[in-house]
């Protein structure tokens, strides 16, 4: 395993890149309170690939949105690299997102009016990276994820797998501290699911990315290095892949799921 960049930024006492401490999130007014997150504490170390699993309504997306600064928790702190993101001023949120985080969304979430190149470059130009550097970094990243061939194509002209690779490229090209993936396989067929999971794997193993992924798909979770189970807003259990194969790991995840109560995707 090659840890190319992130190891330098490990600074906190617990050696964690992301640290959630007693995070709670309550929706609604006095009459009808909904508790989406209840005293969640979680630490993610640099280079980890953590999957958060849970059924619909378990609070897993709320958790991700709080880390993404798209939503704010009602209690607790979320520290990224020693910085409490819940205390960021509204004006600084956008800057924080574009400089520290990378996103992989459910659908590839590329802008349909931009070419592959321009979509990837957006992550850099938004940060104010110098134009001559942009070209170089986009091409380098595209060649690692094998999408150089579609850089001049529009998303509408790409296959689903190519779109996911371009989206992954956009997420990682700015070397963010943390990559967040929200149900990345939710809208994909099995072939493209496999492609995307490969890419995430590759980003994690070869490019040293730290990934936090929300999913209800056990197969997707089986590609992570650690799976955290959430239910009714609370952390419920945790599995580490260790040295086991994808299949073994998958079996273990399925066991926990069965224990949790069958179908996680009970909609």
């Amino acid at each position: 395993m090659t840890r190319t960049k992130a190891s330098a930024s490990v600074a906190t006492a617990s050696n964690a890149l992301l640290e959630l401490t007693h995070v709670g999130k309550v929706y609604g007014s006095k009459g009808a309170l909904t508790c989406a997150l209840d005293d969640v504490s979680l630490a993610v170390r640099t280079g980890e690939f953590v999957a958060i699993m849970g059924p619909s309504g378990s609070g897993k997306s709320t958790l991700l949105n709080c880390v993404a600064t798209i939503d704010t928790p009602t209690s607790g702190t979320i520290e990224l690299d020693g910085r409490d993101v819940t205390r960021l001023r509204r004006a600084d949120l956008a800057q924080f997102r574009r400089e520290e985080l990378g996103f992989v969304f459910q659908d590839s979430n590329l802008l349909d009016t931009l070419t592959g190149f321009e979509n990837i470059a957006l992550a850099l130009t938004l940060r104010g990276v110098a134009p001559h550097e942009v070209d170089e970094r986009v091409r380098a990243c595209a060649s690692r994820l094998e999408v150089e061939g579609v850089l001049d194509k529009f998303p509408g002209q790409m296959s689903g797998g190519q779109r996911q690779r371009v989206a992954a490229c956009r997420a990682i090209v700015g070397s963010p501290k943390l990559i967040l993936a929200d149900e990345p396989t939710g809208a994909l067929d099995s072939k493209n699911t496999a492609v995307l999971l490969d890419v995430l794997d590759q980003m994690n193993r070869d490019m040293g990315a730290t990934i936090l992924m929300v999913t209800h798909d056990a197969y997707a979770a089986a590609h992570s290095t650690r799976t955290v189970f959430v239910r009714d807003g609370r952390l419920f259990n945790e599995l580490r892949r260790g040295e086991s194969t994808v299949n073994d790991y998958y079996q273990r995840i399925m066991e926990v799921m069965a224990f949790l109560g069958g179908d996680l995707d009970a909609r």
Partner: protein
Amino acid sequence: MLARLALRNVRRAGRDYAIYFITVALGIAMFYAFNAVRGQAALLDALSADAARMVELLDMFVKLFSVVVACVLGFLVVYANRFLIRRRRREFGTYLLLGMSAGRVSRVLLIETALVGLASLAAGLVLGIAISQGLSFATAALMGTTMTRYRFVVSTDAIAFTTVCLLAIFAVSSLVDVIYIRRCRLVDLCSPHQASERAGIRHVGVRAAAFVASLALLACAYWQLKVNGLQEADPHFWAATALMLVGTFLFFWSAAGFAVLVLSRSRSAYLRGIRAFTVRQLSSKINTAFASMGVVCVMLFFALTTASVGMGLLELFSGNIREATRYDATLTASCSFAEGDPAQGELEAARGDIAAYLSGRAAGFGDLVRASAQVDYLACDLTYQTLTDQVRDASRLMDASVLDRVKRSQVWFVSQSQYNASVALIGEKSLDLAPDEFAVDNTFASTNALADALADPAVRISVAGHDLHAARGARHVSLDTSAIPDTPLVVVIGDDVAAGIRLRGDAVASSHLNLAYASDREAGDRRLAQLLSQALPLADGATPASDAIEDQFEPAPWPVTSAATANQMRDQATGLRMVIVYVALYIGFIMLVATAAVLAIQQLSETSDSLERYRRLFDLGCEPRTIARSLRTQTVIYFCAPLVLAACHTACAVLVLSGSLFEPLGTNPSGLIAIAAGSIAGVYALYLVATYQLSRGIVLASLRPRRSE
């Protein structure tokens, strides 16, 4: 129940209705104001018969164009409704899903638009009544009269007409809406995504080549227009029109591709912030809407040209009316007789003396005039070419086409004694020619410079056996009363030379009897009309078609073909001026509002279609203010692109027109055109700002934190 729902919807969607409201209200205001001009004109002091007829004429034009305006407004209402339905399709989908019938859904929409329509009718009428009060002062100024008895009036006729038109518009638009909603499929209304994802522009190279071609086409069109000179609808004109249309549409089809090609080549300009996004967003929008951009551009061109040309003509008609009407009245005999015309016999019997003939037929003629002077224009197979050929660089002095026409026309001679008698009536000093001299008199603007060049002793002419040279210094004294100064390069010669020309029987080309009344002009005009009807009774005892002076008598090639009085010419000129200005303003303004509204609605629907894209940018960490800036750039360019091209077209048309029409007639309307351009820019800017504010509101609202599951 439905009404309550509709009322709540209007309150909630108030912002969406803003463009709709502004457009209908402005349209109604203009509609009312111009239809009320006739009622307002009743307030004016002293409105002569001619001026009153001009007001009637204006009213007729306004009514006529109001039909066009109503159609344009109707189209806009339908178009705006379509935008509202699209924007709220999920809401309507929900109603349908809940089991509401399509009929009831359309009724909700109908009540909503009726509510907004009523509000805009009220606002429009209030604004229109305010504008019409201002217009009545403008009318007074344009008609050269005053309004001492001003009071606040509201034209019930105009209100009724406006309301009826609005009701008709609503009837039609509701019908279209109902049909549209009934034909919508529920699945389309409820699906979260817009029908299809939009691809970026492909084949950028082809577009870039097409862009160059479109510029070439437009250059050709301008050139053809210059050749045509906007004088007549010859093949050059149609070629120019076709080239301009094709060039305009091709321009919008290809401009976006060209811009992308050029900009994306320059990496350092392109790869900054979300500039690439802005460029792509705009280009894909212009690319899909190129046809409507073309239509908008052509409509803007019409609006701009109507306003500019109207202003140019205004200057033309108001410029020299005083100079043109120095005699109280002029009676003109065309002297162009048909074979065996009895008028020719009359001419010979009276030895060509119109005043004597009229005195003989109507006893009061001697009392009417203090003095009169007859000017006969004589011709003798000599064209102006003999004179102009002696002037160096004559083509430098005037437009080539005008010079060409001058060269081919016959020289008009006037005897010194007739000339002096006529100019004495208006207190100009008389002419004293040496035996071998001739003088040049001219008041026609386009030949003034030529007249000055001809008044050079080196210019010689041989006529009726006399060799003459020009006296130094051209004269610029009018020899008749007419709508514009039109004394055309008249050559004044000694009486003996004139007598020599007269030896030919048909030397008189036309005769003009200039009158100086014994009384004031108004009484004189009335008396003249009476005397003419007495001296030259209408054929078969017909009753006059109007009380205008030219309808009182039977015209003949001699003694009187037409009569023009100073008062009548002035009233007509001011009236015509008013008609032109008002019609140009009315049409120009409505077209402008229409195009601006179409652009605004398109930009707003574009924004709501693109919300998902803005949301993605925001999620990637783009600042809302960066997004707003991109939106501003998009709106400004989207509005300005058709305006700039239309302004180029207009500039070309107005320049050609000023070469062929304004300059020969000696007017320079650039000041007024600048005012027209300024007001157009103002209205356009209003729509631009409103559109930006609205779309910014829509986008920022959609960027609020997303509800988690």
